């Protein structure tokens, strides 16, 4: 009976200890997870540290808790305080039965019965455990979330770092003698690019950069050199006594590849990728390629241009050419016009503006301005635009339609009249002071009349109505009164019709002459007006202009025929149309066209050979020669386009060296390169091969034909 109750107390104690240990483990685990997570993120510590950390923390908890001090007496005390039915007497159970007095005996019996009803586990025991478990779970969730985020973040960060370190993540194979390499790339100063240092052999830079190699070997070596594009040997100089530090520098101008040779031991091929400096780019926004300035418009051109370059623009200029005159008498005048912008800063892009005042350049109506913009970048590379044209309208030639030939001769005596009018007018002006007013007016009016007559005469050429046409038909010379004409409608109509602008009356001038004649008549009208107003001084400019136009007409109607000195031999009439071709030679032409040598024949045989290579055990000398020739061609291509052909050149070297390890992939690489290099095949006519059947089928055919007959 006693033992059962004692057992109960032991069970309660064990349960209590177990729950507390579990709770401690939970808390320790929570702390461990937190601590390790922080360490991992900050210091990059491994998650394996979690095990010792947990053990330490858990140990500390156990020491702190001192669970071994929990003895049965303490449990009995707890039970007494928690369960009133025990009547504070549970410690009686722990006493020896012999030591108990009667009352205690009785109480013991009572307590023993009561203690049986008490449960083993208690709410109070699990409270810490539950709390600890909640902590653990929540911290674990948090930790997973952070780890997930962290992995994501670190991935993206490493990716971005790779992008920064180099565009080609190609692994370089370096010679085992090389301990370290330091390649310093100094771009030319005009590029304003920063100096670069790298520990790779692959070089990617701009044209004209200076590359310095500092090579450290792990053993003393006799000779180190670089071989560019498989032919250009470039030795490195030793810079210390132990012969392990070697340096050299070189200006890199073109793409290609190189290899390091240490004591005659060649390395892998390394790529040199050079970006060329592009010439500046000029875009003219205004004016348009061809600009026409009409009369009345402002004779000026607003020029807007954008000049860009990859490193900097150092200068830009307008080169203008003014063309004056027409036909053979064109005169050119060239001049440079600078933009107002200063190019001292050599920026990469300039927005240029300039307003060109055309009269300032000496441009008159009818003249043309040709210009282009030339820009220079800081590498002294020039580029220029197309030629742009600006022309100003010539009012005098407004209606002119050049290019249509005129065969009509304008008679020169008419022109003398205009000149005479001018001469007379000038004489009149001179004599003005000595003449009486009325006399002066009369003479001026007479000149006006002369001018009118002259105008009318020219007007006839254009089919304009003459003075006579306007006369009243009822006056003299009226023929309608003739009685024989009674009822002749045609005659009446003819008599009363105003027949001006009759195209039949006009001469057949070509439109350009007509246009100019019209312009002349206009000037004559104006001159006449001034003369009639007794202002011969004012009339002179118009008269002069009319004269100039007439002169021009005269010039236009001229045509030039060169003198020839060909005298045809007299025809033999008896031979004409006889069709006799006896003496005519029959032309026979013979030529031999040399067939072009196929530059790719060796490359083609190499491709066939490579396909069989994995099965061949050894190369014979002829095969080796073919591969060597192919290797040379691939190397030449690699020197020009290392980005495409360098891998193939490397692979070819390995194949030539008899490297069997990666033979299949190497062959594939080289094959791809050869396929790229080969030109497309051109179709050509080909004869079908006949069967070599001792003429059997032909004999059969002939026999068949014979029997069918």
């Amino acid at each position, binding site marked *: 009976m006693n033992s059962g109750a004692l057992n109960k107390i032991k069970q309660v104690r064990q349960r209590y200890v177990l729950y507390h240990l579990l709770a401690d483990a939970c808390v320790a685990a929570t702390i461990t997870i937190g601590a390790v997570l922080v360490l991992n993120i900050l210091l990059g510590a491994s998650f394996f540290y979690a095990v010792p950390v947990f053990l330490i923390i858990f140990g500390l908890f156990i020491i702190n808790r001192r669970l071994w001090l929990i003895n049965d007496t303490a449990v009995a005390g707890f039970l007494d305080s928690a369960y009133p039915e025990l009547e504070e007497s549970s410690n009686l159970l722990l006493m020896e039965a012999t030591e108990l007095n009667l009352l205690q005996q009785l109480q013991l019996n009572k307590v023993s019965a009561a203690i049986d009803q008490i449960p083993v586990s208690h709410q109070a025991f699990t409270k810490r455990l539950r709390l600890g478990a909640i902590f653990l779970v929540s911290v674990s969730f948090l930790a997973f979330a952070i780890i997930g985020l962290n992995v994501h973040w670190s991935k993206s960060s490493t990716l971005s770092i790779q992008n920064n370190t180099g565009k080609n993540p190609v692994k370089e194979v370096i010679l085992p003698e090389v301990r370290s390499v330091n390649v310093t790339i100094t771009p030319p100063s005009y590029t304003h690019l920063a100096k670069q240092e790298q520990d790779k052999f692959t070089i990617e830079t701009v044209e004209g950069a200076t590359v310095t190699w500092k090579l450290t070997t792990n053993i003393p070596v006799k000779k180190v050199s670089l071989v560019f594009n498989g032919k250009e040997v470039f030795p490195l100089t030793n810079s210390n006594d132990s012969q392990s530090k070697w340096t050299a520098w070189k200006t890199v101008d073109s793409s290609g590849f190189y290899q390091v040779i240490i004591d005659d031991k060649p390395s892998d091929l390394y790529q040199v990728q050079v970006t060329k400096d592009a010439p500046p780019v000029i875009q003219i926004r205004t004016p348009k390629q061809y600009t026409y300035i009409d009369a009345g418009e402002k004779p000026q051109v607003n020029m807007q241009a954008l000049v860009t370059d990859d490193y900097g623009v150092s200068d830009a200029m307008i080169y203008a050419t003014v063309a004056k005159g027409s036909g053979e008498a064109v005169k050119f005048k060239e001049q440079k016009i600078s933009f107002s912008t200063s190019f001292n800063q050599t920026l990469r892009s300039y927005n240029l503006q300039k307003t060109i005042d055309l009269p300032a350049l000496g441009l008159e109506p009818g003249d043309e301005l040709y210009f282009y913009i030339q820009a220079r970048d800081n590498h002294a590379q020039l580029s220029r635009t197309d030629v742009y044209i600006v022309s100003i309208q010539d009012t005098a030639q407004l209606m002119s339609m050049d290019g249509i030939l005129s065969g009509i001769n304008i008679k020169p005596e008419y022109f003398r009249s205009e000149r005479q009018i001018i001469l007379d007018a000038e004489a009149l002006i001179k004599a003005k002071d000595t003449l009486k007013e009325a006399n002066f007016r009369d003479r001026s009016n007479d000149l006006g009349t002369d001018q009118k007559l002259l105008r009318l005469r020219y007007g006839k050429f254009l089919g304009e109505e003459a003075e006579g046409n306007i006369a009243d038909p009822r006056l003299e010379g009226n023929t309608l009164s003739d009685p024989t004409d009674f009822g002749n409608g045609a005659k009446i109509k003819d008599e009363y019709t105003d027949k001006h602008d009759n195209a039949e009356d006009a001469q057949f001038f070509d439109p350009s002459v007509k246009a100019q004649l019209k312009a002349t008549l206009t000037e004559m009208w104006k001159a006449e007006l001034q003369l009639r107003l007794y202002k011969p001084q004012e009339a002179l400019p118009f008269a002069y202009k009319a004269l100039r136009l007439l002169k021009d007409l005269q010039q236009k109607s001229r045509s030039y025929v060169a003198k020839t000195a060909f005298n045809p031999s007299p025809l033999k009439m008896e031979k004409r149309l006889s069709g006799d071709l006896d003496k005519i030679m029959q032309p026979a032409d013979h*030529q031999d066209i040399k067939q072009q040598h196929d530059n790719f024949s060796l490359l083609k045989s190499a491709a066939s050979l490579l396909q069989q290579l994995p099965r061949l055990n050894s190369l014979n000398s002829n095969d080796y020669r073919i591969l060597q020739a192919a290797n040379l061609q691939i190397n030449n291509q690699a020197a020009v386009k290392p980005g495409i052909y360098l891998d193939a050149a490397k692979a070819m070297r390995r194949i030539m060296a008899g490297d069997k390890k990666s033979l299949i992939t190497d062959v594939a690489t080289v094959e791809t390169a050869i396929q790229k290099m080969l030109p497309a095949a051109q179709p*050509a006519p080909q004869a079908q091969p006949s069967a070599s059947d001792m003429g059997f089928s032909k004999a059969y055919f002939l026999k068949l034909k014979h029997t069918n007959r």
Partner: protein
Amino acid sequence: MYWNYLVILICVLAFIFSVIKEYRRKNKQRLWLRVVASIVAIAALAALTLPITYWSETSRNDNEAVLLTAGFNADSLTKYKNDSVYTFNDTIKQLYPKAKLITVSQLKNITPTLSAVHLLGYGLSPDELSQINNVSVIFHPAPVPYGITSANWPEKLKQGQHFVVQGKFNHTNGNPVRLVLKELNTTTDSTTVEHEGIESFQLTSLPKNTGKIINRLIAIAGKDTLENEPLPFLIEPIIHIKVLVLTSSPGFESKFLKNWLSEQGFEVAVRSTISKDKISTQFVNTPQVPLTQLSASVPDKFDVLISDLAALISLNQTESASLKQQVSQNGLGLIIKADTVFKTPVLLQNDFSIYQPADKDQPLSPQIQNAKLTAKIPITGQQFITDKEDMQTLASDAQHRVLAAMTISGTGKVVCTTLNETYKWMLAGDKDDYSAYWSLLIAKAAKSAPQSENWSVVTPFPTVNARITIQLQTATQPGAILMDNERASPIQNALSPFQWQSSWWPLWPGWHIIKHTAGSVEKPVYVYDKNDWADIKAVNKIIATQKYASDSTLSGVTKQIHGKVRIPVSKAYFYALLLLCCAFLWAEGKMAPK
């Protein structure tokens, strides 16, 4: 058979020798016994070396066996639990350890004789089938394998010709399969097979390389490479053709044609009429010959004659008769450029008739055979050839109206074309079209090039360690045939004396060179690896085995009725007899008093 006679002869000699020896022996005691012992000993010796068999009735009970070949399904074996399982293939033995590995001859000699063999899987090759010729076979073919089940491509090409591979793909699941044609490790064409069932495909490339070429056909499903098969072929160098051009007047067409042909090294002669009885002649890469009169010998020197119709009409009677003779009997090719004077065709009256349709405003895009050209021809005044039965269309427009066609005239070929301004293509920069068009026309018409020898491989898919039969056509006695420098003597065909055959067993895959001692041509033959084109080989095996099985069931009926079978006598009896006789002879010698 000789062996048997040899053994019998030797034994008879030995017998005579021993009898004489016995007879001369001084001790005549037990003489007859000794003679008999000697005879028996020699006879036993002979029986040991000779195959001694006897006929016996077959047991009528169904003694069947199962023979496994590649592609069998292990689950299908449950039906044949009681039968013994055999295989010829050690990889199958590994797959299915219960199967007994035997040779073909062992299968034939299994006792008691098998009444039938259940053949599972893809079956056997014709070679193996010919070896088991007595055995009655019931074939349970495996389903046609998933993959490329047939493929065809030209064995020989000329430079500038397209390489076309056609075939069928047996698609058993829904995943799309990409078929890629690779030339020198560069993809030149590809297609996707999506639908289940057998689907045909065609892939094309224009090879850049010359000589011995191996393209590859790769089948890819997702990321898995299902098949990677070699497509070996040869690109042969161009044989230059001799071309004679006749024109009724000098023109751009003939000039461009002459320039184009001559820059490729062809021999060209041009005869153009420039006035009455006056001609202009031009010769490129060929010695000058008088062309004023087209005597019989002139066309003989050329492979192709290109002429406009007017020039043909202007030929006199003897000239046209000799030309006709050359075409019909000597195989000269004739290309007629039909023009406006088509009402009186001269040489080949009935072959071509030409019509001119009403004009439309769109320019025509011509196409040659199956390739479309980018060049255009103006519709105005374009004539067409009326399509006929015995005519091969070479060029047509999009509406399949014939622009160029070919017929056969005797041994020669006559091509007629109505395209008279092809030089404009050249001027427009369509040089490829011009080349393709004229290459086709000239190639179709050209006199066939004589060949001293003609090699061919009879065996489809010649495979390493398998018999390959090669055939040679030559007018001269070939002497020995060298295959990888191994000599072999060819068999002459009894009916065609110019055909010779030989066979050989190549030891390694790849290109092999065969030639004959009297010949100059080296013929490369590609030998496939054992695993190349496995699916096609499986299909071929199924077909061959099915044929064999159907034949064997037909003859199997009579076999069952006769039921007699040869059974070899065990050699042990003869050993015992020999030992006994020898022992007696030896013991008798010892026992005899000295």
